């Protein structure tokens, strides 16, 4: 079965979604990611969706869920790289991903997470 790879970078985890996800794959990712957060005591998650050409309400909900689950496990999530056409469509669909932090790219997302960790003295 396909899996979405989760890479560790110090205290952060990087998840790059590069396939058009079917539902089971999306649910599998939630499980794998929460397991990894706990296993490596990650304090931040970068969710790179720059390859995603479509974010429908199911995937949008999965993104919100991942951020909420990570928060409960004491890790901050930043969603990076959303394509402009996806952003336009998401808002028109009625999804604004409230409570989910975003950054334009991985570099800025990483800087944001590191700043926060320093602020919090971790």
């Amino acid at each position, binding site marked *: 079965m396909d899996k979405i790879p989760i890479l560790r970078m110090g205290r952060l985890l990087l998840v790059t979604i590069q396939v058009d996800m079917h539902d089971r794959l999306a649910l599998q990712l939630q499980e794998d990611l929460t397991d990894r957060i706990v296993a490596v005591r990650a304090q931040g998650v970068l969710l790179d969706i720059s390859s995603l050409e*479509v974010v429908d309400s*199911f995937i949008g909900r999965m993104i919100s869920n991942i951020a909420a689950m990570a928060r409960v496990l004491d890790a901050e999530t930043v969603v990076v790289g959303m394509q402009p056409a996806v952003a336009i469509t998401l808002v028109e669909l009625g999804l604004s991903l409230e409570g989910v932090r975003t950054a334009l790219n991985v570099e800025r997302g990483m800087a944001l997470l590191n700043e926060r960790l320093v602020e919090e003295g971790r």
Partner: protein
Amino acid sequence: MAIVTRAILPLKSSEDIVRVRQATRESAIAQGLSLVDQTKLVTAASELARNTLDYGGGGEVEIARLDEPPRKGVRLTFIDQGPGIADVEQALRDGFTTGSGLGLGLGGARRLCNEFVIDTRPGQGTKVTIARWR
């Protein structure tokens, strides 16, 4: 209205939703829709395909490429033989759901398209037709 090509895809599993997204994207590109319009149509297709699967118990979708000079477009028709929708107005309202979703599918899909027609009756199944023009 001239139909250039027509394809029918089954909607029986969540993998089929991925295939419908891909086939819709291909048709949208072939008809010359802009990137934003492609994305809107594909997203609407994904929402409706999920409705067909989750609420209609599965069904099929017809993807038609339309040529009506000077305009070109794509029309999608989702058909299921499920329980139908008793109150369409209510089902179109954002946040309304009888399932576990967010309740954005039907109303959201309508906002993302140029044309949206829903034909349903309790016990008679549901047919949703959408179109997006260049």
